[in-house]
């Protein structure tokens, strides 16, 4: 549980710090300070000082929720690990290749995003298509890894690590599939030649989400390898 608590403490620290910054110096009862105190105080982008787009903020909140979910799974994993019947699992070497594929899909989506920022539609198309294809390859690779593990007899639940392997990789893959659904909506925007701004936003959100899932995968993979 410590992992989850540390994450939550950090998150709440950020939330409370932001709230304090927005509200603590406000002294509306002082006559001249009153005008200064009225600001919209929405969340602003740390890079430009314009108000953050709603969809970006929503993705940020969603990533906090997903992090809470993964932190809890990792906490449960760590707590279960303490028990005497824990046997470390040898992961299929396929997972290394899958990791590489996931890195590549992140790279291509970042490339697509950079292209969108420069307004190059061709780049965006290529990046999104290849990135999407690699993501599908990752999921197929994960299913193959499951298959490999199951056929070498590890489906029997004698070892708790087995259960966690399927659980952690499964939840990660489900999130990636959700991302692919979002990516398909961006593709449909590209297809319908919608304006560059909304395409750029769509690609940006997908790229950020992909990088997030890559980081989560690296953490999960590292956890599975070392325990």
């Amino acid at each position, binding site marked *: 549980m410590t992992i989850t608590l540390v994450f939550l403490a950090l998150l709440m620290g950020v939330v409370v710090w932001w709230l304090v910054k*927005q509200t603590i110096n406000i002294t509306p009862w002082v006559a001249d300070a009153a005008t200064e105190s009225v600001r*919209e105080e929405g969340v602003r982008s740390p890079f430009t000082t314009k108000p953050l787009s709603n969809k970006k903020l929503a993705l940020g909140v969603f990533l906090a929720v997903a992090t*809470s979910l993964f932190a809890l799974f990792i906490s*449960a994993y760590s707590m279960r690990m303490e028990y005497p019947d824990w046997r470390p699992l040898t992961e299929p070497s396929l997972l290394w290749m899958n990791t590489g594929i996931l890195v590549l899909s992140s790279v291509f989506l970042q490339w697509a995003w950079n292209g969108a920022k420069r307004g190059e539609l061709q780049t965006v198309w290529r990046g999104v298509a290849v990135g999407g294809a690699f993501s599908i390859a990752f999921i197929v690779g994960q299913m193959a890894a499951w298959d490999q593990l199951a056929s070498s007899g590890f489906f029997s*639940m004698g070892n*708790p690590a087995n259960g966690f392997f399927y659980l952690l990789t499964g939840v990660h893959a489900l999130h990636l599939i959700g991302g692919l659904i979002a990516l398909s909506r961006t593709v449909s925007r590209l297809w319908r030649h919608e304006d560059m701004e909304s395409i750029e936003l769509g690609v940006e959100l997908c790229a950020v989400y992909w990088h997030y899932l890559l980081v989560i995968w690296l953490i999960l993979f590292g956890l599975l390898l070392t325990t």
Partner: protein
Amino acid sequence: MSETTAHDAVDFAPPSELEEMELYHAKTWIGKYVWSQDAKVIAIQYGITAIGIGLVALVLSVIMRLQLGFPHSFSFIDPSNYLQFVTMHGMIMVVYLLTALFLGGFGNYLIPLMVGARDMVFPYLNMISYWVYLAAVLILVASFFVPGGATGAGWTLYPPQAISPGTPGVGGGIILMLLSLAVFIVGFTMGGLNYVVTVLQARTRGMSLMRLPLTVWGIFIATILALLAFPALLVSAIMMLLDLLIGTSFFMPAMVSLGEQTAYDGGTPLLFQHLFWFFGHPEVYIVALPAFGIVSDLLSTHARKAIFGYRMMVWAIVAIGGLSFIVWAHHMYVSGMNPYFGFFFATTTLIIAVPTALKVYNWVLTLWRGNIRLNVPMLFAIGFVFTFINGGLTGLFLGNVTVDLPLSDTYFVIAHFHMVMAVSPVLVIFGAIYHWYPKITGRMFDEGLGKIHFWMTFLGTYAIYYPMHYLGLEGLPRRYFAYGDTAFMSESSQDLNAAISIAAIIVALAQLFFLYNMVVSLWRGKKADDNPWEATTLEWQTADTPPKHGNFGPELPAVYRWAYDYGVPGAADDYIPQNVPPKDVKKA
């Protein structure tokens, strides 16, 4: 400088930085009222679904009380389905009624109106979130009808019993329960994104965070709690499903079940308890914080007086929200966990009582020397203060480890949590529905029926839960179908159980006054003004009542003051709405 001394009124509202959002206006009746993207319609959909399933749970509780008050008098109640009723009553009330109604119902209706927005920031996602919630409710109801019936594991669903033979509903019932919870969590994540982003980014010009009514603060912080706490329930639900369906041993120890050694080994039920209560404790604050926020606004409006200590109230809500994540194991003192944990969690539990008590003092101080109008919403709001103090005080007993040891799993616990969760927030729900009824429907309800409803409910719930504490002190255990002859329980406890059951039936029947009033007033109620309570907040300053899609007419309001300018010295009226600039205030 104006001559009225108001809290933070300025003649200045900053210009808008963002374009107004474009709403999708449906053309067909189905598009407007069924597949609606209007947050107000979605709110009513949530409200009706939640109250509907809540009435089912109310009936279940009456059946339980029949068994407890008059044991073995009803052949249709047996030990197995009794536990099913206990479980479903609890789960429906906590999750599918209270959470859904406060966040999905009141949140959807009040947040856009109170922050001065035309709608939620993601209306399509909002619409989907309701239908996902409805799907979750239907899956839960389906669990009654599968072979084996609904699960009887208790709303806390503790393994190993929850998924072991011998517990009712161990087939389809528990699977559908867990599936329904997972679907609910997905739906509420969608809704939660809407509420958080709308409060942060869609406030109108001049509506700073510290000018928000406490209703919005309560729902906002509760939503953040929900977004962070529900994953814990999802994790435990998924792991329990895997234990049941593919034989993993996350929670299942090596054990003998019905005479046979099971294939499980090495799991621990304690892990489930930690995960479940990590969700479960913030969950009760997800229910309580919106109630705190709403009751502050009800008290303030109907006492014609600013809420006492607004900033402290905001920070108390934030503090309670944060602290709620580090008190969970006070539900686990008797679980066999490390006793030093108990020491830590008892300390944090007593700490969280401090901001909560602060709020109680401020509510009382708001009433002090107020110009109190004892109308129906105010009666319910004051009723909340009484019952919450009662329920909160018994929480102090249970929060201490040594006192909790004999009281755990007795009726003392049941009396405590019903007082703080079933009575107090439900009184707020009633008060809130009566309060906003004129705005939502354009009609006034019948005041007389409302008062009858209040007194029967308020006095009746005291009659139910106050004596129940004594049953707990005597040691009467919870979740028991019948008590038989036991030496430590006096004979009078059975009489007390019967009396409580009679009170429960009367209170349940009294809700018919409420339902009748709400439905009939839609046609027979007097037409309401835009602002019958003379309140300051933005939802009362709309162009139409009920507000049309888009809420505020062609131009969004600009806000020039906080939400509590009641009784401002120098002003002609005893209230100044938020969107009235100082230069337009009528002087006395």
